[in-house]
């Protein structure tokens, strides 16, 4: 027991330092790296970066191009700065052949976000459902939730008294059975809020990778199987309810290709390359001129500009995520790091990451020091070898406990 408890103490100290030291390192030495805000001018066809009040054109290689004054920037990015342009009388009636006004631009602009943190999370096993066609003008808070049962049914529960609504459950279950929905549900997406222009209901993906749209209309079920191109198998669905009502969302297939789902259930490929909602942060800034799609992950940030009519790629710019100097130095000190959370999900788990072979040199030196120190302390040869081997692998995280917990 003495040996086991001592080994556990050292393991705990090592793990604690593997979390605490990199955390303190980053806290004390912020790397100061910032990504500028980057947009795309439909007029000049250039990416324009803005940071701390300064704007410049981004060269194709990512370097800083010519500077752009504020007035010029407003003109180059009318989809964003139309209020400023309108206030100074510089907003024309049409741009690139499209009629523009502050009202038109305001109503057609949209922002859509998808974060892996919101995708990779444990959802409740009951789902709220809204009435898509409320009796009055405004949407009302849901009065019922539903669950899916193991025998492939939907069960509606009245919120007021937590009892099952058998009638509605039977009606919805029948529609799902009739439409051939294969349980269990692989994925779903909905935006349950009363503050939205319309209700797109649920986008659901069944066990066969087929996409469905489910709505509750006047209390009755509506379930539409959405035809996907070719043999595409849907993997992830994202509901989007913009004021213009053109789209009801996106669907990402198992290959990472993204499709736009129109309000008429037309499905068109969005030409943004691979997108993994479980890994990538997505930001779409849409306007009548273009959709600027920003896809960011641990490796790179990509800005892709697509045509809002046919979703083809107009321009793109990729910025690799490089290590800062502070991070590079850290890689020589820490052979790995321990974390329990991540920006990419809402789960807690042990994450041993940022493995660095560069730290082996320091580990080697520390292992030699360990041998000298432990021999001076007249430790048994086997203990010296074990400690040195441990330090060689986990480096400074074990070296400190060995020195201080004697």
């Amino acid at each position: 027991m003495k040996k086991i408890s001592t080994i556990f103490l050292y393991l705990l100290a090592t793990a604690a330092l593997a979390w605490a030291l990199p955390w303190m390192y980053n806290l004390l030495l912020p790397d100061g790296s910032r990504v500028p805000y980057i947009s795309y001018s439909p007029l000049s066809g250039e990416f324009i970066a803005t940071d701390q009040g300064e704007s410049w054109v981004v060269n194709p290689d990512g370097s800083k191009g010519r500077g752009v004054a504020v007035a010029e920037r407003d003109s180059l990015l009318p989809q964003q700065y139309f209020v400023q342009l309108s206030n100074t009388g510089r907003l024309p009636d049409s741009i690139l052949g499209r009629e523009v006004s502050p009202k038109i631009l305001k109503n057609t602009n949209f922002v859509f976000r998808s974060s892996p943190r919101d995708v990779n999370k444990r959802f409740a096993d009951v789902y709220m459902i809204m009435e898509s066609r409320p009796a009055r003008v405004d949407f009302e808070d849901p009065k019922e939730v539903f669950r899916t049962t193991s025998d492939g049914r939907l069960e509606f529960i009245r919120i007021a008294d937590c009892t099952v609504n058998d009638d509605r459950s039977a009606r919805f279950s029948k529609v799902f059975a009739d439409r051939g929905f294969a349980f269990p549900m692989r994925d779903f997406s909905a935006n349950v809020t009363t503050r939205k222009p319309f209700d797109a209901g649920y986008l659901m993906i069944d066990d066969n990778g087929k996409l469905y749209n489910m709505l509750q209309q006047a209390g009755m079920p509506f379930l539409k199987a959405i035809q996907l191109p070719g043999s595409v198998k849907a993997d992830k669905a994202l509901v989007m309810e913009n004021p213009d009502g053109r789209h009801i969302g996106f669907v990402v297939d198992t290959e990472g290709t993204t499709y736009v789902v129109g309000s008429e259930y037309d499905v068109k490929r969005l030409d943004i390359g691979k997108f993994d909602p479980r890994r990538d942060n997505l930001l779409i800034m849409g306007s009548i001129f273009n959709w600027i799609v920003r896809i960011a992950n641990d490796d790179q940030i990509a800005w892709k500009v697509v045509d809002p009519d046919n979703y083809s790629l107009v321009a793109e710019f990729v910025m690799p995520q490089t290590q800062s100097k502070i991070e590079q130095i850290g890689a020589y000190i820490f052979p790995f790091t321990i974390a329990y959370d991540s920006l990419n999900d809402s789960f807690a788990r042990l994450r041993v990451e940022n493995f660095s072979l560069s730290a082996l040199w320091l580990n080697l030196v520390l292992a030699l020091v360990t041998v000298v120190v432990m021999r001076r302390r007249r430790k048994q040869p086997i203990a010296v070898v074990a400690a040195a081997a441990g330090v060689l692998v986990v480096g400074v995280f074990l070296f400190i406990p060995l020195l201080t917990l004697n």
Partner: protein
Amino acid sequence: MTRAIFIKEWLKTRRCFIICLALALCFAAYLILSMNRVAVNKGVDHIWLIMLMKDNMFVEAMKYLPVVIAVALAIAQMAPEMSQKRLKLTLHLPYPQTRLVALMLLTGVVELLVIYCMQLSAIAIYDSTFLPHELTSRVVLTTLPWYVAGLTAYFVVSAICLECSTKRRVVLGLLGVCALYPFFVQPAPEAYNCFLPWLVIFGFATSLLSFCSIYRFKEGVQD
């Protein structure tokens, strides 16, 4: 002998146990009354909405309570042993020392589990009166890591109390903070579902720290 050891530990902790149990039940009552107030003022559907849309399980207020209770119980149980080095009497008992320490810790764990189970049962029973089992279990699964954190805190604070060197107490305190950090890192409901079994194993493994302190006590380690 085993019974005598349990009784000895009970005599040390019974007052603290009753206070902690009352505190835990008062907190449960507070949470229940808070939810009831929302239900009366804004309707039950508001609670459902907040739970499902805002990921608020109405238990956030008790997040650190299991740790506080565990710390109090560990101090109540272990501090008398170290006061005037009374532990010498305990270790001198004609009983295997490892088993003796394990029984001491087991007493504390049982007391904590009673407190935790009663508190969690009160909340879960109330929730189940107006929430589906999915949401009740979501509440329970959201709070479980905090209770496991409580058990871990109990073991760490016991080790700190049983430790005879102030320097090592500080080290154990820092290690305790690091050991408890993962239990509170992720606020999302059910974020710990997969991690929880490992945390339970880890939590119980921290009981080994008390044995380290005991061995050091037996070696007469001092500052």
